[in-house]
């Protein structure tokens, strides 16, 4: 479970290094964000996006959940009194020590974040970045959009990543970026009872244009295919739950869409057609479907074991559930039952249709009970590989099952 905090509480996807594609270069690179892909706080993965939080001096930080700006969490920074300190988020190397990455693609772009202050003196907080070994932190009051009179309200601010902000912010120096977010203060800055809340931190490329792309790929070799059909092989006849021959890569790279989310459901005009269906005379036959959002293409392995395309189903005496059959742990339940548009569950504790979103806190990676939307069910990010499964066990020959699978982006 990822919590957007300077205290790392990553409970899964640990230890084993896998081939993860870097997020550096995305138009909107999430630094302290649940809904945008970007950094990865799993240090043990040792990938380009690996970061950790460093703190020094007497700065305290905590995770908060009351009325966040984005997702389900935000971070509160509380400096000690009459002293110095700071903290930040930095790239790390294989030894988990501060390390550089090439972020020159973001030169002339912006550092954007949302802050909430409890005192106008918070405007003195130096906030910035570190490039080529140089700390560059400017008072919040220098950030575009900052209003020191706006107390206990979220405000969106930004800092240009070029020499207009600081002469050391150059393309060459940004090629050696370590701290993506840096807070450094001394006794001349701090005063009693200051609290700085931070949320939705991201780096933005110059002239960045937001986009939502859906790509179809083959499960067999991960190559891109130009098709609008998702198919199941006829060899799956009367077998079990089987994954489709194609999967979708959903990539939301945009910070301009307000309250966006991406939903997945079938639209077959009937609550009982929760997948593929066929009609023969007066009889109707249904293949129930399911789906799974994965951070990476399947299969792969990490600290929690194997992530596979195998689908298992069981009943625990209370409800039916789906699990990763190739993992061996029936408690690992990344698959969710598909629903028809006519039957979408909308209770706050039951959500089988939301794949990812601004307010949900990332993408829906774990079902738990009833497709729960609790904090533990979502992982940070906005780029996922979306796999589709169907129950082939009770299929009948002589039929062609079809269904309308809908990927729906909604925003204000």
């Amino acid at each position: 479970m990822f919590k957007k905090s300077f205290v790392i509480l990553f409970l899964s996807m640990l230890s084993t290094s896998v081939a993860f594609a870097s997020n550096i270069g995305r138009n909107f690179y999430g630094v302290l964000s649940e809904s945008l892909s970007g950094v990865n706080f799993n240090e043990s993965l040792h990938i380009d996006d690996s970061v950790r939080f460093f703190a020094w001096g007497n700065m305290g930080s905590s995770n908060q959940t009351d009325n966040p700006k984005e997702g389900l969490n935000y971070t509160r920074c509380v400096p000690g009194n009459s002293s110095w300190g700071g903290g930040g988020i930095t790239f790390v190397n294989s030894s988990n020590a501060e390390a550089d990455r090439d972020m020159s693609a973001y030169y002339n772009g912006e550092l954007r974040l949302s802050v909430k202050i409890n005192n106008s003196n918070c405007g003195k907080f130096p906030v910035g970045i570190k490039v080529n070994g140089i700390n560059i932190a400017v008072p919040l009051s220098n950030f575009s959009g900052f209003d020191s009179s706006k107390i206990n309200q979220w405000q969106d601010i930004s800092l240009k990543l070029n020499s207009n902000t600081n002469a050391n912010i150059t393309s060459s120096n940004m090629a050696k970026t370590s701290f993506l977010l840096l807070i450094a203060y001394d006794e001349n800055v701090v005063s009693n009872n200051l609290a700085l809340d931070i949320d939705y931190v991201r780096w933005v490329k110059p002239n960045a244009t937001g986009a939502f792309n859906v790509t179809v790929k083959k499960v067999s070799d991960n190559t891109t295919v130009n098709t609008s059909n998702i198919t199941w092989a006829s060899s799956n006849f009367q077998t079990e739950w089987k994954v489709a021959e194609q999967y979708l890569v959903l990539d939301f790279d945009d910070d301009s869409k307000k309250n966006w989310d991406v939903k997945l459901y079938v639209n077959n005009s009937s609550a009982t057609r929760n997948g593929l269906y066929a009609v023969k005379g007066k009889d109707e036959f249904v293949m129930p479907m399911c789906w799974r959002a994965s951070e990476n293409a399947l299969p792969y392995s990490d600290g929690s074991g194997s992530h596979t395309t195998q689908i298992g189903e069981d009943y625990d005496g209370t409800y039916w559930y789906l699990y990763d059959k190739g993992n061996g742990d029936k408690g690992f339940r990344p698959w969710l039952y598909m629903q028809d548009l006519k039957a979408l569950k909308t209770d706050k504790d039951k959500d089988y249709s939301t794949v990812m979103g601004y307010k949900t806190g990332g993408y829906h990676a774990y079902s738990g009970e009833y497709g729960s939307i609790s904090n533990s069910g979502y992982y940070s990010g906005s780029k996922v590989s979306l796999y589709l499964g169907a129950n082939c066990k009770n299929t009948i020959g002589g039929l062609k099952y079809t269904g309308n699978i809908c990927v729906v982006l909604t925003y204000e």
Partner: protein
Amino acid sequence: MKKVVSLLAVLFLFAGLSFAATVSTTTYVGIADFSNSGTVDFSFTLKNVSGDAVASQLNWTSPDAFVGGSTVAWVRADQYAVVAATVTKAGFNVYMYQTNKNSSNYKAETPRHNADNSTVYSGLVNPEKKGGDFKGYIPVAFSFVGTKNANITYDIKTATVSATRSDKFFMDTADSTYTKDEGDYMKYTKIAGLVGPVFAQGTDGDWTGSDVVNNTAYMYFFGGFANITGGEKYGTDQLHIVQVTE
């Protein structure tokens, strides 16, 4: 002036309460094509009730007490049918029906009338009379059961049909109430999404065959004897059992 200010305030308040949502939908067609999948395995075997030897026709031995009686007495045939169906292909059905008007040896020319005045040509035909209401037919009905029962008897059901036995009459394509749809073809099998027991289906509803074991059911045949003249022969050579994949 005050009125204008108030109106503007109301408009602003409503604007703050609503927003337009933009929805962008991408639709993919999911396809699982099992058109060439599935198998059909069906058998219909007549056997003697006594001894279980394979038989080639249905015979009735009518006790003398039923001959010439005014009350219809349903007599079980001396043979029964073993019906086995393992079908994993949709659209497969086995229909049973008669075409007595087409017979040469037991030709029906005149129908008999039901209580509702509908006309039927089905059953066993008196070839001398070529049908008709008076001693022209012996109506025939059948039942499906999941276990063999040599002592099975037949009770005429009314509109409410037993869920465990199908009380179906033989139907002829010339019957006045006959229409070619699911209700009027006597279908042996019906795929309800599963490979499973044999069903019977007709205008009275479906028999679900819940007591069928290993996809095998048993049919028993009953003739309704009444007003029968001793020494006469009734029969049919137009009982068709047809396998169809639709």
